């Protein structure tokens, strides 16, 4: 049990690497889905006994993050032909630098918070890494679809952190949180669908009309 969870955590960390470095949205969606499935399996591995509702819950998360979200996002990508991220010449080096930065920050944080889970040694840094990479995905990518993916990765990280520290919530609350995530992604998808219809490409560059003009000040 222990080794498998160890491998799962390593897989999560590598998913982060691929997420940060890949520039095609299809790959992004694929790896995010993979990461979702992995994080869903984690609590099962870590927990000693298999409570019934625990399995049902994990299955629903796998179903949701593994299959339904990628299906919706793939349709969106096709609809808005948001296949490719504009590659700048420095983007390769930048993603590596960001990955390393995220790695060191999360390791520093987990040491500083002296929160080491015996059974799953690397779970806390992994969850912090996923959270921060989710954030940086939203910051670095211009395609709106990849920003949704960034949000999903952020949720995966938080979920992974929650399962790592065995936070047992009443089922109702777990369900509410999952439901919220599902609705959030769904509404974002709807929004991107409308953006696509409006601007016929869902690049976030054309979404910067609302800003403060500098320069023309009204005189007193």
């Amino acid at each position, binding site marked *: 049990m222990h080794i498998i969870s160890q491998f799962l955590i390593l897989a999560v960390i590598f998913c982060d690497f691929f997420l940060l470095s890949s520039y095609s949205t299809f790959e992004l969606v694929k790896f995010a889905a993979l990461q979702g499935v992995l994080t869903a399996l984690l609590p099962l591995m870590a927990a000693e006994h298999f409570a019934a509702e625990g399995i049902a819950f994990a299955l629903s998360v796998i179903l949701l993050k593994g299959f339904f979200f990628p299906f919706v996002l793939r349709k969106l990508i096709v609809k808005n032909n948001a296949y490719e991220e504009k590659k700048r010449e420095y983007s390769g080096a930048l993603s590596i630098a960001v990955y390393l930065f995220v790695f060191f920050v999360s390791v520093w944080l987990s040491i500083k*918070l002296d*929160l080491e889970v015996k059974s799953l040694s690397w779970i806390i840094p992994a969850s912090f890494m996923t*959270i921060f990479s989710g*954030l940086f995905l*939203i910051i670095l990518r211009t395609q*709106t679809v990849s*920003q949704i993916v960034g*949000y999903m990765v*952020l*949720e995966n990280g*938080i979920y992974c*952190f*929650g399962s790592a*520290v*065995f*936070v*047992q*919530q*009443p089922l*109702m*609350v777990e369900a*509410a*949180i999952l*439901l*919220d995530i599902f*609705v*959030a992604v769904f*509404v*974002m998808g*709807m*929004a*991107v669908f*409308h*953006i696509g219809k*409006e*601007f016929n490409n869902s690049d*976030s560059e054309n*979404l*910067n*009309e*609302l800003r*403060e*003009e500098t320069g023309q*000040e*009204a005189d*007193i």
Partner: protein
Amino acid sequence: MSFLSSFLYFYGADNFKELSLFLILMPTVLGILSFLVSSNAQRRSIIFIGSIFHFLITGILVLTLANRDLYAVSNFPVLILNSFSGNIENAVFLSVVSLLFSGASFYSLKYLKLEEKNIRKDDEGFLINDEPEAVFTGFMMFFLSAMTLVCFSAHMGLLWAAVEATTLFSAPLIYFHRSRRSLEATWKYLVVCSVGIAIALLGTFFLSLSGGKSGGSLYFYDIISQAKNFNPLWLKLSFIFFFVGYGTKMGLAPLHTWLPDAHSEAPSVVSALLSGALLNCAFLGIWKSYSFMRIGGLGEFSSSIMIFFGIFTVFISALFILNQKEYKRALAYSSVENMGLMCLLLGISFYVGREAEKLVFLSAIGHSLIKSGMFFIAGMVLFYYKSKKYAEVGPMFSKTPFTAGMWFLGFILLSGAPPSPLFFPKLFIFKFMLLGGKYFISALMIFLFIIIFAGLGKIFYETIFSGANNLQEIKEDKTILFPSLSFFSISIFIFFAFFYFSRGIK
């Protein structure tokens, strides 16, 4: 009359739980119903009846507060609060939400009728067709139920889910006008708030972690009773994450970026609710974590953060109001400023003692009422003059005198002049700053308030007195401004009541 009130009182206290559950679910049911119903007129009546009903029941529930010792039963671990005794702020914010919602529903009755006939161009010239009204009414009711859930939740996780739900339900409302700019505003609103709320979720996990290695329970009752022996490091971390998370939703300084866009692009009914009710609900999150910190003995840590961010928010909003070109964005920034003030006041109330929290209530109620009234009027101004920039809005003084009068009365109330309830919080902030010997900060605050007054004054002044008066005669509709008139008079009444009853705070 006394028999009726005592009957209502006992009835409310007995089955508090059933009533609160009913209060949460009733709007959702009505929301689904409005999707099924065919004609728009019925949908509008649904909203109106729902909100009036909601307001009545809230009145009954809040009435139970009147006699605290009768029902001092402590709220044992259950998801939904079963009495307001422990936390008055929930009651205050709930009453504000329901009052605002009833005003908004009355306003939207007329507004939706006007919008239907009013085909107008977007800024880029695209024809604007609005969302089907079913979507609007439906999501309005879902929005109401989400906010009621926030006020009733007794469990931090549930609170988080409810606040996330309010974000999701209000997103389509912003997108009512289907223009490019409102789409952009919705997208930014969604992403920024969801990321913020996600961080708040992390804060919830930290809070439960601080309860013990194996994760303590997140019920308010448990947290309050065992807060003293929480692990201080984790508690601090949880407060920081809560502060950043709910601060984004509440619109504190560096995280406020979504607020002006969302408020200026949304229809005025929605921006009134956003500004009046939603920001308060987000503030409820910070208030809860602040009270945990205070009980846990780390009050000083949290209040220093809150004071710093309060002043920083007022600073940023002052600078942005100064060069503002559009009046709706100026109103949004003044909401940001007011949220900063409330955060500052809560921080100060740690040093001065609990009854200073009365001032936070006063500023919350006052701001919500006045700001939503102003947004109603802004909606009508936009409808009359078809432009958001104050330079293009004609001289309201001669064209639409009644709206101009209300517009200026709202400005006077917003600026914190005495008849407005926002006067006492300002007076108290100056008293605390000066007595505390912080002369530089108080001088800075005076300067910032003056800049805000001048900035807002410029906008209201230009809209009322100057402008190209080549527009044709405008038929002014007075009855639609009844809600803002009633909100303004309630706030002025609150000012005099507070002045008469409060014997001043040392």
